[in-house]
């Protein structure tokens, strides 16, 4: 269409073009109705489901509206201004025309005004029932005249027409486009009873679900908008607040409140209301309810948004053991247990080894000093966890999608950890010493006697290297923590830290446990050197993570940087004796190092934020997780297995090696025709974070199995969330149980 080309320029918002558009707005009414063709911002096309239709048959007919970028048209209730398109059909006598099915509208906020409508490409569908005398062997014409108001910051009324002909021998088929349009329409079949009332300044709506809508799972995920189809009921710009019903009233109900507008809803009677809900980064969904006036309905004064999590009905969304129902006590116990187990996770192993060394030395030390070490170690861990929790809380308040292990999504931090572990490895191997005391005394020079500072530092280090691991129990506790007020989040994190510190604390405070350790001796030096290797292995693993997050060239710089670092240490140890020469050599080395660090950070920043997958292909066929791929496979009939992983998540890798990427599971997947979806959280990915949140988690791994759709009922069984440590048996039990 000729108009599209001109109009596409408008959103560029140059002053001249805006002025032109304004001029057009002025001229259009005068000219448009005189039959002229001004530039159009909308094009309209009629899409009959098919053109080969029998008399008396019902078909769907769509009108596709395509808007120029930056322009929108309106929903049935347009909001503060705007008008929905008007469609005037001229059809063969006797044709019954159904009402329009409106897609889920978007919100358009213009200063203090809010409108509801559509941009891009939408289809308004309706049904038409053919007259009984529709000739099957002669063409029948259907014609529609359309008045549509299209707006950017200014509005243009446009006139369009569209038509189609049935039974003209063309056999056109638009059913695919109409199917797609109908699939995303607001649901009208929600089994619920809805009542409304005015309460103070609010319009309130109470919905009691006979059957809780499946995809409404965790309501906290969504921004809700309560949109009455009638104008003037609610303040269009006001936000919608949502509450669950008090537990003693009913199991499955939601209460919505929004500032009322100036119209008395009682004068309208029953209200058709659209509940629109949208999770971050996803398409909006919606359902309709028809609400009756109930003058006795009251907003529950006891409810606040914070209470919502506690009041969620059991089994919402069909999730087994929804962790959101967890009490604070359970969460604390889980966090503590998770922390203890964290000591045994592969990523903590090198640090655990260092502590083992220290424990041996502690045999020689006095009771009091041992306790002090234990406390210093605990203090280091708790402080680190407090900092971590604080950062997470701040990020969440700021609205960012962050979760456990989020710090490893930043390649600069991964690189820093690599270097840290590499240096510790070199130190353990005896390549260099700090302050004469080795790694156990690292920081001791600063913090005073007895290497207490060293213990503190070890605690900090233990936390840092523990972050990529998610121990069993921990995931649920962390997920719970992140949905709570900051104070509770902090408490759960500290419980986790305490768990991590606990084994060492026990040794520090219970002498008989210490006595069970081997006696110190010359073997300790060899053991220390041996421990360099798990440490270097951990560094190598982090380097691999880094390479996935960045580029080959960044990896090359990082490795050269490691060599240069080792070289720098060597130079410092064996500098020339002349003072001047020594200074020159050291400055040169320091400059080279600084340059290297600059280049590496620059490379890390340059890295494309695209997640490269952490797996080599071949063993399995899987689909990368995206909202679209997920929704599509859930909508299908096949069973679906979702695995969320990350390169830096050792637990994830271990599970895949032990329980998923094995023959038994592979053949089971094949036998059940499982659709395997894998999400890679190595770098930030908001839709994965949102998925995790839906299941009350904020870290990987998570494994969810959705059983095949029952052909008889058309329903899927409840989704099964698998534990965070897998065996082939656990996977088999989940899959077979789900059949």
């Amino acid at each position, binding site marked *: 269409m000729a108009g599209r080309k001109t109009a596409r320029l408008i959103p560029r918002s140059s002053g001249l073009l805006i002025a032109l558009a304004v001029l057009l*707005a*002025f001229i259009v009414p005068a000219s448009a109705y005189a039959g002229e063709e001004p530039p159009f911002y909308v094009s309209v096309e009629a899409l009959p489901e098919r053109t080969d239709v029998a008399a008396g048959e019902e078909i769907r007919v769509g009108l596709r509206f395509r808007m120029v970028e930056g322009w929108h048209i309106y929903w049935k209730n347009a909001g503060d201004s705007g008008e929905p398109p008007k469609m005037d059909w001229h059809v063969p006598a006797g044709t019954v025309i159904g009402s329009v099915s409106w897609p889920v509208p978007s919100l358009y906020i213009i200063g*203090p005004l809010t409108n509801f409508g559509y941009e891009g490409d939408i289809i308004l569908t309706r049904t038409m029932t053919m007259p009984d005398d529709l000739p099957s062997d002669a063409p029948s014409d259907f014609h529609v005249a359309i008045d549509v108001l299209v707006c950017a910051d200014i*509005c243009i009324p446009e006139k369009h027409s569209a038509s189609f002909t049935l039974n003209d021998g063309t056999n056109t088929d638009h059913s695919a486009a109409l199917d797609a349009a109908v699939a995303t329409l607001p649901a009208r079949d929600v089994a619920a009873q809805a009542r409304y009332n005015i309460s103070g300044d609010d319009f309130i709506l109470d919905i009691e679900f006979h059957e809780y809508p499946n995809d409404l799972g965790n309501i906290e995920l969504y921004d809700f908008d309560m949109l009455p189809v009638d104008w*003037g009921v609610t303040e269009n710009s006001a936000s919608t607040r949502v509450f669950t019903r008090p537990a003693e009233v009913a199991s499955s109900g939601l209460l919505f409140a929004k500032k009322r507008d*100036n119209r008395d809803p009682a004068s309208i009677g029953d209200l058709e209301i659209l509940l629109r809900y949208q999770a971050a980064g996803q398409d909006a969904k919606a359902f309709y309810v028809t609400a009756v006036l109930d003058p006795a309905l009251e907003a529950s004064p006891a409810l606040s948004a914070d209470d919502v999590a506690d009041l969620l009905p059991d089994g919402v969304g069909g999730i087994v053991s929804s962790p959101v129902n967890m009490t604070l006590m359970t969460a604390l116990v889980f966090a503590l247990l998770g922390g203890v187990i964290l000591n045994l996770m592969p990523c903590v192993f090198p640090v655990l080894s260092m502590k083992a060394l220290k424990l041996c030395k502690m045999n020689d030390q006095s009771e009091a000093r041992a306790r002090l070490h234990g406390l210093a170690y605990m203090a280091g861990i708790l402080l680190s966890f407090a900092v971590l929790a604080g950062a997470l809380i701040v990020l969440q308040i700021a609205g*960012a999608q962050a979760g456990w292990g989020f710090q490893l999504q930043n390649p600069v931090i991964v690189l820093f950890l690599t270097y840290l572990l590499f240096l510790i490895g070199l130190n353990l191997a005896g390549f260099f010493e700090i302050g004469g005391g080795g790694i156990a005394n690292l920081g001791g020079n600063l913090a005073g006697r007895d290497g207490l500072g060293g213990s503190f530092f070890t605690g900090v280090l233990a936390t840092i290297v523990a972050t990529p691991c998610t121990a069993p129990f921990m995931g649920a506790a962390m997920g719970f923590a992140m949905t709570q007020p900051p104070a509770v989040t902090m408490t759960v994190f500290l419980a986790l830290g305490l768990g991590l510190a606990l084994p060492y604390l026990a040794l520090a405070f219970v002498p008989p446990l210490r006595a069970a350790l081997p006696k110190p001796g010359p073997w300790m030096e060899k053991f220390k050197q041996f421990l360099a290797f798990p440490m270097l292995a951990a560094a190598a693993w982090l380097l691999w993570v880094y390479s996935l997050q960045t580029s080959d060239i960044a990896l090359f710089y990082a490795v050269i940087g490691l060599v240069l670092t080792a070289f720098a240490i060597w130079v410092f140890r064996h500098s020339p004796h002349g003072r001047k020469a020594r200074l020159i050599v050291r400055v040169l080395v320091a400059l080279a190092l600084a340059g290297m660090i600059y280049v590496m950070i620059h490379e890390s920043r340059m890295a494309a934020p695209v997640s490269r997958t952490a797996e080599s292909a071949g063993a399995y066929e899987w689909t990368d997780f995206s909202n679209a791929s997920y929704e599509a496979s859930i909508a299908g009939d096949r069973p679906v297995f979702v695995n969320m992983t990350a390169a830096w998540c050792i637990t994830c890798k271990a599970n895949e090696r032990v329980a998923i990427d094995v023959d038994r599971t592979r053949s089971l997947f094949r036998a059940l025709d499982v659709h395997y979806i894998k999400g890679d959280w190595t770098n930030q990915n908001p839709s994965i974070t949102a998925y995790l949140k839906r299941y009350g988690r904020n870290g990987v791994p998570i494994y969810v199995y959705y059983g095949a759709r029952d052909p008889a009922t058309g329903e899927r069984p409840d989704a099964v969330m698998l534990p965070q440590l897998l065996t082939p048996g656990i996977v088999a039990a989940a899959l077979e149980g789900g059949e």
Partner: protein
Amino acid sequence: MFKTLKKTMMTFLAAGLLAVPAMAGAQAAAVGEAAPDFTLTDTHGNEHSLSDFAGQVVVLEWFNHECPFVVKFYDSGKMQELQRSAAEDGIVWLTVVSSAPGTQGYTSADEANEIIANWESAEAARLLDPEGTAGRLYDARTTPHMYIIDTEGTLVYNGAIDSIASANQDDIEKADNYVVNALEALAAGAPIEPNQTRPYGCSVKYN
């Protein structure tokens, strides 16, 4: 992450800005209650307050000369006709322009006078509201958006000018004109029905 952060902060900021007019709307003009007073300057530099017209019926018309829905009523001569007939009945017709500077419909006083002359419009005064103060006070949403205030200073009508929401001049004669209905009912001492409708037109271009 910083992008998200920035976006969030902007949202907060926007929410904060929006909260003010929304709250103002709470005490704003409600049918059956006292119409809130305002003071604005007209195109000749004279100040007018609503309270100056106590004892008279007042019509408020929100206006934007570039809006197709406004043009519909002036191009056809309908609005001028209503303004003249109102003036004959001793009714005060005030046209309000709440377009912010730089937005559609904003005019300087001189430009406004030129438009008044060219369009032969006949309001008692064209009031300039570039800050949108009166517009927000009345929660004016569209151009045109009509309000009627009775001799007691009570708001008795709030809404559209007529019953057919279109920019098509042909619809003017087919539609029920709510303003004419309301003024007739007011003169006859009869209840105004409807006294509240959904206004239609272009959105008011607030800053």
